[in-house]
């Protein structure tokens, strides 16, 4: 058996991990943190739980947590950074803080930033907690750079199942304890520099629709009006459903820049024509 599901994650991944008990949570965390050590990453664990408890948990899960913490490779923080002190969740400020943390980790010589976000606080009365779904979709914009990855911890005992489905759809990929060992992230989205744009790899369906929508909006918004040609590279997109095809077409038609969709498969091209409502599809050629 090859690398585990957790070990297969890499920078750029933003994964929703829905678990049922603390044993599952800790098993995943141990693997996740140790993989970060091997990859020379800075690791930040955002949680409302006091750091000494988290340290003990990690230590018991096979992580040399105290040494990592002493050396500064492992840090603990409150998510959302700083703002939760005031019992007020401000997703825009948090997304800005992400960028600063990424820059700090890289200027400290780390290859990238590996994040654990325990989202238990979002099940409580914190003001703004109802914006978590929006936040999880919007935060995808910091992941496309490939300098950060995150595992978002959602305890299924705390969250309403319907709400958790919507939150999961804001992540490009989701895992739960029943996930098959052969799992790989359903969708990866990478910003490209030359040509400027976005590369999609994997599958786009209802389970990650919000993540795709937010990322496309971000990329097209960034490049809109810049006069540059932007490329949506879908050669690695093995599957796209009708809603994803619509999102791609909307993105391509939404900016004043020149947007090209490249690597479109025959079936995706056909699907785009179908959802685009071409006036005379199927009629005589």
């Amino acid at each position: 058996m090859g690398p585990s599901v957790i070990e297969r994650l890499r920078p750029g991944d933003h994964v929703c991990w829905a678990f049922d008990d603390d044993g599952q949570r800790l098993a995943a965390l141990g693997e996740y943190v140790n993989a970060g050590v091997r990859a020379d990453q800075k690791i930040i664990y955002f949680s409302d739980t006091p750091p000494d408890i988290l340290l003990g948990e990690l230590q018991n899960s096979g992580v040399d947590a105290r040494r990592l913490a002493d050396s500064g490779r492992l840090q603990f923080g409150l998510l959302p950074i700083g703002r939760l002190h005031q019992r007020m969740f401000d997703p825009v400020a948090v997304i800005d803080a992400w960028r600063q943390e990424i820059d700090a980790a890289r200027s400290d010589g780390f290859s990238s930033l590996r994040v654990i976000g325990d989202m238990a606080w979002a099940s409580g009365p914190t003001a703004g907690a109802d914006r978590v779904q929006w936040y999880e979709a919007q935060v995808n914009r910091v992941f496309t750079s490939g300098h950060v990855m995150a595992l978002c911890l959602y305890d299924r005992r705390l969250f309403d199942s319907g709400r958790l489905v919507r939150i999961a759809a804001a992540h490009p990929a989701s895992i739960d304890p029943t996930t098959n060992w052969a799992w790989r992230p359903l969708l990866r989205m990478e910003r490209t520099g030359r040509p400027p744009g976005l590369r999609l790899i994997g599958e786009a369906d209802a389970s990650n629709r919000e993540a795709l929508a937010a990322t496309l909006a971000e990329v097209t918004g960034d490049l809109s009006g810049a006069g540059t040609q932007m490329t949506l590279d879908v050669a690695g997109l093995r599957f796209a459903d009708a809603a994803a095809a619509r999102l791609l077409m909307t993105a391509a038609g939404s900016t004043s820049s020149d947007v090209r969709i490249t690597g479109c498969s025959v079936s995706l091209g056909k699907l785009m024509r179908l959802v685009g409502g071409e006036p005379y599809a199927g009629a005589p050629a």
Partner: protein
Amino acid sequence: MTSTSASETPAGAQAPAPAGDRFEHTGLFYRDEEQYATGCSAFLGRALACGDPALVAVPEGNGELIRARLGAEGDLVAFADMTRAGRNPGRILPSVLLAFADAHAGRRVWVIGEPIRPDRGAVEYPACARHEALINAAFAGRDAAILCPYDAPALDAEALADVERTHPLLEESGRARASATYGDPIETAASFDRPLPVPPATAERYPFLGVGALPGVRDFAIARAQAGGLDEERVAELLIAVNELATNTAEYTTGPGTLTVWAEDGMLVYQIDDTGHIADPLTGHVPPPAGASRGRGLLIVNELADLVRVHRGPAGTSIRLHFQLPAPTA
């Protein structure tokens, strides 16, 4: 088909139509090629006399019979091969009839559509008859004339009676009359919603719940499509269609869904059963308004599958997709 109660008028004259409604939907009973070509060319003659756009969507050979009658004027008429454009009767309305009407918005359109051929099998027939009934609902209030030729000697008594139930106007041997048994199109369409034959015992089942299960549904679907012998492009299209149905189940119903797959009569069959109910009988047959984010799933399914059967039961909905397998090579 030989109702005597209705009044008769010459077919060449303006046929009877309800006041205020310019939509005309006529079933043409023909007995031979001569009657076929005469009836169709008379209909097109009315269109051409008005300078209106006209489309002939019939099996290719029949199209040639009409073209021969029209002579040079045939160039003014659009032709589509119904055996391809209308292989799945569920897509004739959106991608042939309404597409042509919308491409000529603001003008009266004339279409000859021949969806029911004697060679349509028993599995296909209810979908064809349902389509004929839904035309009346989809085109209500539109400025259009649709003529549907029927090979009378080749159809059985039930099929002939269904033509009368689904067409407000009938034409036979050059005489037009109102149908005595034409009824509410939605009720008539519902009468063709027949229980689906039970899948074979060898069918494979895959239960699923929620959008997180969709990748697994696709893995199950693709493996069986490849094993069944569909080519790569058809596998991709099948996957899109099955995924749209499973997505509807996951997003719009609370219960689980089941995907059942088997092969029969040269077809791969994929059926999704769920606890949902499709409220609008025109869903999947009429495009939603431009910009609407929902309502396209079943349209796409109709476009990609070779046949779609829908059965609404008290416990939920069954949608059965058929995909033609390539003929075995010797």
